[in-house]
């Protein structure tokens, strides 16, 4: 065990830092909390330019093979670059879902021509992808998808609705999970396709979210035609394909939330009290210690995952820990910061209170983070059942034909 950089890692870090210092500052933005709502054209243009810059230098997807535009690097190098990059305020969220989940799925299941067509542009930030899995009928229960695809010669015709699709409003492509056989049990009648978001018949309607912004969408499909060649994996085998996407999701989400103990430490130090500053308060110090220990535990757990990865093991369900902790800490810490300010905490105005505005952003986005990409409850079920091997809930939906499954509506 060694928590310091090896000589090679130190050299890589120095190289990455030098490169970042030279290239990153001009793309940096002053950003608020996690899951920012700022999607101005300007922000997107800057994000794309930064992505292209990284791609040209081999920093876009460090662990991907060189033939696909990656650096053929180690997971540790990716961690090191991520740590260094985080210090520059260039964390654009536009590419996470595409590069973290959708494109790896395409790479695993598509033919060479398709891969050649899509991987490069996605890597360079020229094309953005979204994940069209959740539906009104199910987010936790993704396999309950009802959106129908019916074969028509060499095409498929898709009708239905997806919901909570992050970034659909600015995405160029997506991967979509659809029902191709309603007579089979639910996991056995799904098929995955990649889809052009500009296809006739697709309508994207932004959803106003509780935090005020509109990052996610309803996506309606009316007689949308896709070619059979857009299929990823076998017909009715889409569930297996989606598991590859979701496995990658575990690694893509659960990282930093943009708010940590150091920010609330700063806030407490600035808050004068009769005894000095809020940082001197014993109860607050104890909480701060807890948050720090929790974050470090999470960080080092992630490192352990990276070590496992670098030995060729696949990330297991234990990565579910990450998002449960990160999302709940974001909520608790943001709330504690707001309460630390006492009555003043209610003011939600970035100009009057720049630091607290970040916490308020966190307070309003944290509930979404506890739900997106696997709710707290589902993640705990995964830990209980797949890590600890405890028996699952009695299932009533596995062996019945999908069309006969109880749904309440």
């Amino acid at each position, binding site marked *: 065990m060694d928590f310091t950089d090896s000589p090679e890692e130190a050299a890589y870090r120095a190289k990455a830092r030098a490169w970042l210092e030279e290239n990153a500052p001009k793309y940096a933005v002053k950003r608020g909390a996690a899951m920012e709502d700022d999607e101005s054209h300007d922000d997107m243009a800057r994000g794309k330019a930064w992505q292209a810059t990284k791609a040209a230098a081999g920093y876009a997807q460090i662990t991907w093979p060189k033939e696909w535009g990656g650096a053929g690097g180690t997971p540790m190098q990716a961690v090191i670059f991520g740590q260094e990059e985080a210090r520059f305020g260039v964390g654009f969220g536009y590419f996470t879902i595409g590069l973290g989940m959708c494109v790896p799925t395409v790479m695993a299941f598509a033919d060479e021509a398709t891969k050649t067509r899509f991987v490069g542009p996605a890597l360079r930030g020229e094309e953005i992808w979204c994940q069209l899995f*959740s539906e009104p*009928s*199910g*987010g*936790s*229960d993704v396999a*309950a998808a009802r959106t129908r695809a019916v074969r028509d010669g060499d095409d498929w015709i898709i009708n239905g609705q997806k919901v*909570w699709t992050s970034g659909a409003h600015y995405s160029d492509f997506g991967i979509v999970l659809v029902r191709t056989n309603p007579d089979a049990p639910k996991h056995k009648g799904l098929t995955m396709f990649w889809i052009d978001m500009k296809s006739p018949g697709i309508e994207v309607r932004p*959803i*106003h*979210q*509780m*935090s*005020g912004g509109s990052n996610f969408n309803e996506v309606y499909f009316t007689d949308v035609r896709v070619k059979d060649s857009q299929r990823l994996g076998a017909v009715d085998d889409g569930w297996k394909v989606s598991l590859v996407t979701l496995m990658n999701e575990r690694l893509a989400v659960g990282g930093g939330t943009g708010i940590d103990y150091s920010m609330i430490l700063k806030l407490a130090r*600035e*808050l*004068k*009290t*009769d005894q000095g500053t*809020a940082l001197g308060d014993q*109860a607050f110090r104890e909480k701060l210690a807890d948050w720090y220990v929790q974050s470090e535990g999470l960080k080092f757990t992630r490192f352990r995952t990276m070590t496992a990865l670098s030995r060729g093991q696949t990330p297991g369900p234990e990565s579910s820990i990450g998002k449960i902790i990160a999302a709940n800490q974001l*909520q608790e810490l943001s*709330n504690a910061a*707001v*309460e*630390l*300010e*006492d*009555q*003043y*905490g*209610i*003011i*939600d*105005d970035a100009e*009057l*209170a720049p630091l*607290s505005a970040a916490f308020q952003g966190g*307070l*309003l986005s944290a*509930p*979404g983070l*506890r*739900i*997106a990409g696997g*709710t*707290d*409850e589902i993640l*705990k*079920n995964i830990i209980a059942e797949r890590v600890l091997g405890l028996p699952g*809930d009695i*299932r*009533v*939906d596995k062996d*019945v034909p999908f069309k006969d*499954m*109880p*749904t*309440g*509506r």
Partner: protein
Amino acid sequence: MNFDYSDDQKFLKDEARKFLEAECTPARVRAVLDDAARSYDEGLWAKVAAQGWLGAAIPEAHGGLGLGHIELCAIAEELGRVCAPIPFASTVYFLAEALLLAGSEAQKAEWLPRIAAGEVIGAFATAEGPGAVSAAGLQAKVEGGKLTGTKVPVTDGDVAGVAVVLAKEGAQPGLFLVDLNGPGVARETLKTLDPTRGAARLTFTGAPAERLGGPGEGLALAEQVMDRAAVLIAFEQVGGADRCLIMAKDYALERYAFGRVIASYQAIKHKLADIYVKNELARSNAYYGAWALNAGAAELPIAASAARVAASDAFWFASKENVQTHGGMGFTWEVDCHLYYRRSRQLSLVAGAPRVWKERLVSHLERRNAA
């Protein structure tokens, strides 16, 4: 001993609920939420005044209904349940209570009838920026009956006609009544976490100020007003928390995942049970506070602190886990979960954050249990 509302009080509470279900629908709350120019519902305010609620605990001699504080608590619970977008707390729990507690006969005669009639909105101005209010940090001052200084944030300061202001007079803190429509007052409306409630920054430059209570009594009086307000706000919090539990339960019973209603999963059952337990403990602490308030009991500071701590915790927990139970739907603007999430923050902050009350609670316990 009797640990419940009386039949008359129950009747009042039921009537209040029926009235508010009809008059304070989610659509009405959202009309304030979605309009940045509005910080309260004027129509609802007038109707609430017509019900006599603003003067529920104001003596008949001053134009009120002359009911007790338990009745006011019952109304508060119902206002909390519907997330009422009106300056009720500022006007009734703070201004009217401050006057009842410390006002001279002339001050009572001047203001209480107007409060009861819904003619004046009140505000309680103690904070001067981030952090808990402290005597040492107080900057606002009164000299020769004129107030100078800045108070921020002041809940309902954007619409109030009169404020109770904590300010120094000489070296001593005092409470002062200030006409906000008079000279020397500037207001700036602030954007807040709960847009269904307003707040402002008030800047005073020689505004005429009239002392409420004796010189140097400011902090002690402010604490007594806060105790009263804390009990009443605890009832709003309990009402809101109960509403969250019902929303979560209703949704859990109709939402299917994996072929079953989500209410059949133990993770959801335990979550709802946890909300229920917190709500019931908060309700019991609030009842004790209501008794202490109504009876003018010496236990009020401890009872009020306990009510505030329990109710703040219960409402926060219920509001966030209600969102969680609703899954992706809960994170949307269109679903009402976030109204309660926001209101739970507003109510936890408006009378000072729970951490301040925990400290007060323990210092009172320390004194009471002195060896």
